[in-house]
């Protein structure tokens, strides 16, 4: 079996096709898997996810991936719920997560002028430069689709605002994450995915 350069961890979400197509447009082959050997050997690993943190964690625990993911050495990118899974936990059903990023996801506050879920294009405020954000300008819009978010901490590369700032991009050692969906964020999102695939090359 030939190793795939990008392993997408199957955490049970339904939005995997759009991510695979986005990688395809960058000429990157990907495989959707829960196989720990395939994941360990991949050059890059992506942890996507849509839905609730507790059920996604349960799925990772069933396959032993909750033990494997924190030990990965190659670049790992969490997307949306995947970002929250890499954190300490989520208030959504009090889920315990993978403890890579400090902090827990909390429910976004909502109002008529700031609906929850936060669905749509929000501008990024870039806080720190990083190869992941190469070529992405402050104020560039990305597509968000979420009800929970992580607080801004020292490892936050960029924030976004929804009645208060939350972490939009995080980097900690070889672990990266975006609260938005780069695969659905037009050319800026495509650039970010390309940057991720170039890390460690």
């Amino acid at each position, binding site marked *: 079996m030939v190793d795939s350069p990008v392993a997408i961890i199957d955490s049970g979400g339904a939005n995997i*096709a759009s991510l695979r197509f*986005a990688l395809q447009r960058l000429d990157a082959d990907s495989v959707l898997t829960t196989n720990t050997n395939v994941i360990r050997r991949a050059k890059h690993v992506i942890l996507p996810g849509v839905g609730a943190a507790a059920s996604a964690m349960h799925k990772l625990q069933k396959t032993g991936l909750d033990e494997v993911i924190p030990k990965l050495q190659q670049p790992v990118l969490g997307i949306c719920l995947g970002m929250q899974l890499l954190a300490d936990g989520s208030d959504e059903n009090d889920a315990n997560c993978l403890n890579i990023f400090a902090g827990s996801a909390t429910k976004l506050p909502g109002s008529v002028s700031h609906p929850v879920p936060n669905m749509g294009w929000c501008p990024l405020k870039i806080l720190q430069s990083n190869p992941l954000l190469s070529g992405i300008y402050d104020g560039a819009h990305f597509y968000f689709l979420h009800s929970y978010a992580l607080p801004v901490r020292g490892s936050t590369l960029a924030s976004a605002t929804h009645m208060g700032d939350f972490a939009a991009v995080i980097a900690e050692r070889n672990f990266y994450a975006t609260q938005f969906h780069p695969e659905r964020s037009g050319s800026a999102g495509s650039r970010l995915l390309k940057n991720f695939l170039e890390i460690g090359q």
Partner: protein
Amino acid sequence: MKNGRVVKGVKFRDHEIVGDIVELARRYCETGADELVFYDITASPDGRSVDRRWVTEVAAVLDIPFSVAGGIRNIADAEDILNRGADKISINSPALQRPNLISELANRFGCQCVVIGIDSFERNGEYHVFQNTGDPEKTSDTGFATATWLTRAISLGAGEIVLNCMNMDGVREGYDTRQLANLRTNCEIPLVASGGAGSMQHFANVFSDANVDGALAASVFHKRLIDIPELKHFLKAANIDVRI
């Protein structure tokens, strides 16, 4: 959409063919549309589901979100569409016939995937929800007041509302900002305006007067009456936060 082609009517009637789905999707994506919605208007009235091969083809070329509407009656229909790469599913008539479908879909896929389309028609100053609007022969008044159905859909787990103002559809005289502004006060989930866009000012008005999260339009883009990049610069100049 009807039989694999993109079509557009006026007030939900007299549809004419606009073009190939994938080509049109690509053109809108490249010119800066923020999101696309594909309605299979023949699906619900015929009691059948959409032919879904095109969903995969569209997902492969788009790098912006898109939703699919038409004949989604159960979890299996929704799962098939989402697995093919759509970001959201939009439900209209089937939710009116069986409101619990909204909860079932929200529980399974998360409310962020579940868009409820509401076709609202005004008669004698009252707004009512209509169903099976894809086929003039089968279109009927459900008897629900639009505001009542909106509240019910939200409580059942809707993640977004697309409100189609049927009186304004395809006539390009502006969105029904009065109705939308009223509904906005009871809608703490994203609200998208649909029906009536005819000029760039109409877009600016619906954002500033009704505080909607998005504005949907078809004919002005299909007929190339409004250029998307020009529209976005116009909105930005009007202090509306848009992606350029």
